[in-house]
C-alpha cells in the first residue's frame, strides 16, 4: 500500500515538475529533433526551443504554444522563396537570435517572415531578416515588443514588394532599435494606438520610410529616416508626437522629409530635416505645434498648403534652404514666431536678440513656382532676385499674415 502511495507521490512530483518547470528542447541536424515543425508538435507551453546553427527550410509554420524560440549563432530559417515562414498564434512568445530569409513574394498574400496574429506580450528581439517580402507583420496584437532586429531586403519594384515592419490593428507596441532597409515601406502602421517607435534606422526603402494612417497617440522618438525614395508620409491621425527624429537626404522628384496629411494636434519637436527636397509638407493639418526643429539645406523647408490652419511654427532654425516657406494662397491662418531664419536681413537695435523688422519667409518667386513649376528654371536669376526685392518692399501677392514678427537673431539651441 505504502509502495503504491510512494509511487503515486513520485508520479505527482514528476507531473508537477514537468508542468511548472520549462523544458529546454534542442533542434538541429545533430539533435533528436530535426525540424521546427516536429519541435512545435512536441513542445508545451513555457518550453524553451533552442535552434542550433544550421539551415532550415520551412513554410507555413504555425506556432500555437507559448514558448521561447532562441537561435544559437543565428540559424537560418528560409522560406525558399515560396510562402510565409512563421505565424505566431500564441501569447507570450519570444523569438530571438534567428535569421529569417527568402519568403516568397506575392501579389495576393502578405507573406511575412514572422506574423504575429492576434496575440499579446510577445517579444521579437535580435533577429535578422534578409530578402523577405514582409519582414515582421503584426495583426490585431497588443503589448508586443520588436527590438534590435535587422530587416533588410533588396526589393526592386514598388508594386511587387512588401513592408519591413507592418502593423495592422495593434495597440501598445514598442518598436525599438531596428534597422529597416530596402522594403516598400520601412515601418507601416494602420489603425494602431498608443505605440512607441524609437531609435530605429530606416533607410533606402522604395516608398516611405515611415508610413502610418489612422494611428492615434503614437510616439516617434530618436529615429533616423534616410534616403527613402518618398521620405516619410503620415496621414489621418491625431495626437502624434514626433521628437528628436532625423530626416535626411530624402532627395528626389517626389520626395518629402515629412509629409503630413490630415494630421491634427500633433507635436513635432527637436527634429532635424537635412537635405530633403521638401522638409515638411502640410496638407489639411490643424493645431500642430512644430518647434525647436532644424531645417537645413532643404529645397523647401516648409510647404504649407492653404487648407492647414492654426499650426504653430516657433523656435525653429532655418539654415540655407532654397525656399524657406511656400504656400499656395494669399491667406494664412498659421502662426510663425521666434524662429531663426538664415535669410533674415533685418536688425536688432535694442539688442534683445529679436529682430525689429518682421521676416516674410514666403518670397514672390516661391509663390510663382508653387503655381507654375517650370518657372523654377529661372531660379537664382538676376531678374528673379529683383522681383523678390521689389515684392519685399511692397508686398502685393505674398501672404501678408504669413510673417514672423519676432525673428530670432541667432541660432536657437
Amino acid at each position, binding site marked *: 500500500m505504502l509502495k503504491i502511495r510512494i509511487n503515486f507521490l513520485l508520479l505527482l512530483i514528476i507531473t508537477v515538475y514537468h508542468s511548472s518547470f520549462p523544458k529546454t528542447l534542442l533542434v538541429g541536424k545533430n539533435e533528436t529533433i530535426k525540424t521546427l515543425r516536429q519541435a512545435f508538435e512536441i513542445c508545451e507551453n513555457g518550453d524553451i526551443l533552442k535552434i542550433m546553427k544550421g539551415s532550415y527550410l520551412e513554410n507555413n509554420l504555425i506556432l500555437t504554444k507559448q514558448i521561447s524560440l532562441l537561435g544559437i549563432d543565428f540559424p537560418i530559417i528560409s522560406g525558399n522563396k515560396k510562402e510565409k515562414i512563421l505565424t505566431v498564434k500564441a501569447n507570450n512568445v519570444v523569438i530571438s537570435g534567428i535569421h529569417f530569409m527568402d519568403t516568397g513574394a506575392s501579389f495576393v498574400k502578405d507573406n511575412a517572415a514572422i506574423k504575429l496574429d492576434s496575440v499579446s506580450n510577445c517579444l521579437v528581439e535580435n533577429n535578422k531578416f534578409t530578402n523577405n517580402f514582409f519582414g515582421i507583420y503584426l495583426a490585431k496584437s497588443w503589448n508586443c515588443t520588436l527590438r534590435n532586429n535587422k530587416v533588410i531586403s533588396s526589393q526592386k519594384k514598388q508594386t511587387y514588394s512588401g513592408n519591413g515592419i507592418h502593423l495592422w490593428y495593434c495597440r501598445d507596441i514598442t518598436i525599438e532599435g531596428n534597422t529597416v532597409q530596402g522594403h516598400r515601406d520601412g515601418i507601416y502602421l494602420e489603425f494602431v494606438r498608443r505605440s512607441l517607435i524609437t531609435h530605429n534606422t530606416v533607410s533606402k526603402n522604395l516608398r516611405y520610410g515611415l508610413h502610418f494612417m489612422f494611428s492615434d497617440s503614437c510616439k516617434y522618438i530618436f529615429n533616423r529616416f534616410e534616403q527613402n525614395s518618398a521620405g516619410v508620409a503620415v496621414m489621418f491621425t491625431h495626437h502624434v508626437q514626433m521628437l528628436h527624429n532625423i530626416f535626411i537626404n530624402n*532627395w*528626389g*522628384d*517626389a*520626395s518629402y522629409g515629412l509629409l503630413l496629411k490630415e494630421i491634427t494636434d500633433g507635436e513635432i519637436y527637436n527634429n532635424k530635416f537635412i537635405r530633403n*527636397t521638401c522638409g515638411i509638407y502640410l496638407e489639411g493639418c490643424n493645431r500642430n505645434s512644430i518647434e525647436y526643429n532644424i531645417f537645413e*539645406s532643404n*529645397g*523647401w523647408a516648409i510647404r504649407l498648403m492653404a487648407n492647414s490652419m492654426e499650426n504653430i511654427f516657433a523656435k525653429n532654425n532655418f539654415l*540655407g534652404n*532654397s525656399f524657406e516657406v511656400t504656400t499656395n494662397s494669399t491667406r494664412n491662418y498659421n502662426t510663425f514666431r521666434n524662429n531663426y531664419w538664415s535669410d533674415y536681413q533685418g536688425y536688432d537695435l535694442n539688442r534683445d536678440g529679436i529682430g525689429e523688422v518682421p521676416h516674410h519667409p514666403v518670397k514672390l518667386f516661391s509663390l*510663382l513656382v508653387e*503655381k*507654375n*513649376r*517650370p*518657372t*523654377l*528654371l*529661372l*531660379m*537664382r*536669376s*538676376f*531678374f*528673379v532676385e*529683383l522681383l523678390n526685392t521689389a515684392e519685399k518692399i511692397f508686398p502685393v501677392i505674398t501672404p501678408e499674415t504669413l510673417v514672423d514678427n519676432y525673428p530670432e537673431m541667432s541660432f536657437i539651441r
Partner: protein
Amino acid sequence: MNALKFIIKYQIHDTLRSKWLIIYTLFFAAISYGLLSFTNESSKVILSLLNINMIIIPLASLVFGTIYLYNNSDYIILILSQPINRKTLYLGMYLGLSFPMALSFLIGTGLPVLLFIRNFKEAGPVLFNLFLGGVFETFIFVSISFLIATLNENKMKGLGLSIFLWMFFSALYDGLILITLQIFRDYPLEIPSLVFTILNPVDLSRLLVILKFDISALMGYTGAVFTQFLGGGVGFAVSILSLLLWSTLPLMFGLRSFSKKDF
C-alpha cells in the same frame, strides 16, 4: 599666320600693361577671397560666384570690348596702312583682349578657390561648369562688343547699345521667359523653356551650374526633363555647341563688316 601671332602678342602686351586688367583680376580675387573667408559653405560661395558670372562678366566684357575698339581706332588705321589682312588684325585684337580677360577671371576666382580647396571636395563638377561658363561668357560678350563697335561709329551709341544688351541678357530676357511661362502655363513648356534657355548664354551658364546643384530635384517632372537633357552627353554637347555658336557668330559678322568698313 605670323602676322596674327604678332598682333595677338602685341595686344596681350598692351592689355597686360594697362591697369584696368589688373584691377579686374584683383576685383575677382577680393570678392572670391572675401566670400570664402566669410563662410565655409561651398554652396553659398558658388552661388555668389555664379551671380558674378551672370552680372559682372557680361558687363565688363561688353563695356571693355567696345571702349577698347574705340580707343584703338588710330592704331587700327595705322596698322591697316601696312600690308596686313583686315581679318588677321580683327582676330588678333579679339583674341588679344578676350584671352587676358578670361585668364584674369580664372586667376582672380581660381586662386582663392584653390586656397580653400578643402571646402570644395564634392563640388568639382559644379566648379568646372562655373569656370567654363565664365570663360565662354567672356569670349561671347567680347565678340558681341566688337561687333557693336564695328557697326557703330558713334561712341555713345555703341556704349549705350552694349549696356542695353547687358541688361537684356542678364535681366530682361528672364523677364520675357517668365511672362511667356505665365501666359502659356496650361501647356507643356519643358521643351520651349529649354530652347529659350539655350538661346541665352547667361541663362545657359546659370543652368549648367544650378542643375549640378541638384536643384533639378526641386522641379519634379520639369527637372527630370532638364537633367535628362543637360545632364546627359547630348545635352552637354548641345550646350557647348550653343556657347561656341554664340562666341563665333558675332565674331564672323564682326569680321565681315570690319573687312568692308570704310575707315
